[in-house]
């Protein structure tokens, strides 16, 4: 089964431009906004709100852990430690997940880098 998945994932990765995949793992607090659009790699946050998301590379393995923000006055990004393994890993087996937390600091737009790719961040009032 794993051997059959290999070409499928590689082709899917090529079609998608070999980008990382990002998946939100936390919900917004009541009345506020925290969402991640995986297709457009964009995050929308209310000021003072945070979102956590998992990052996997084009092979479905956890991303590398590096992170940075273009404008720390607009949004911050931190690596997070999650007490869980990936559900599967076709080459390396279950691995510790790569998770990041983005924090909305002030209204505006910026970009963060997480695991090698960029995500746009919009912080709402």
């Amino acid at each position: 089964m794993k051997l059959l998945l290999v070409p499928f994932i590689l082709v899917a990765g090529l079609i998608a431009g070999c980008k990382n995949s990002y998946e939100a793992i936390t919900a917004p607090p009541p009345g506020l906004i925290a969402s991640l659009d995986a297709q457009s790699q964009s995050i929308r946050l209310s000021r003072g709100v945070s979102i956590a998301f998992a990052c996997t590379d084009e092979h479905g393995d956890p991303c590398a852990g590096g992170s940075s923000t273009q404008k720390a006055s607009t949004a911050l990004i931190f690596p997070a430690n999650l007490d869980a393994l990936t559900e599967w890993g076709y080459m390396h087996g279950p691995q510790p997940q790569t998770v990041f937390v983005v924090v909305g600091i002030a209204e505006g737009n910026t970009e963060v880098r997480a695991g090698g790719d960029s995500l746009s961040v919009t912080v709402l009032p």
Partner: protein
Amino acid sequence: MLAATVTAASCGEGSEGALGQAHLSSDCPSEDLTCMVQGLDGPLAVGASARIAVVLAYQGAATPPTRFVSSHPDILAVDGDTVRGGVGGNATLLIMLNDEDTVIDFMHVWVAAPDRLALSAFTTDGRELGEVVTGAQLLPGEDLVLDASLYAGGQKLLGHAEATFTADSDVVTLLREPTSGRTRLVARKAGQASIAVTADGLSTSLSVEVKP
């Protein structure tokens, strides 16, 4: 303290962090399980402070050294294990590894300005009996533990307000509890007393009758 903390955490009580790994509770005396299981069930009052207890639920790991970081110190200030409400708003309280910028969990916290001050009564072991709604009647030698509670729009706010208690007679003596910061009122002799309480620019009072 450890037993109480473990009990609260093992029951999945307290307020669970967004990542489900930390359980937070506030201002809880060690024997006050009711307080511990309540968690952070309300906005923090502007001007009030709350000590935050954190229990982490990591499989196969004890709780590592952690620290708090606030996304907006003007709204939610952090000083060690204590948070303080600055101005009204919302902020993220991040729980991070002590010497790294790695997030263990986080919690969204609201801060609200109080519009009412009330008095709550407690047992000597820290259990809250509820809001004081009428004057108190005591016998000489009896005592009553009181604390100022702040409300906004009918909702009770979190945090310990810096309250000032004053009595207008020597019928009672007011003592400050060292661990909780609450006030213990001790009836000394028969008579009447009025207790005035101020906190956060708000005030209330309690009439006390000490029976012979």
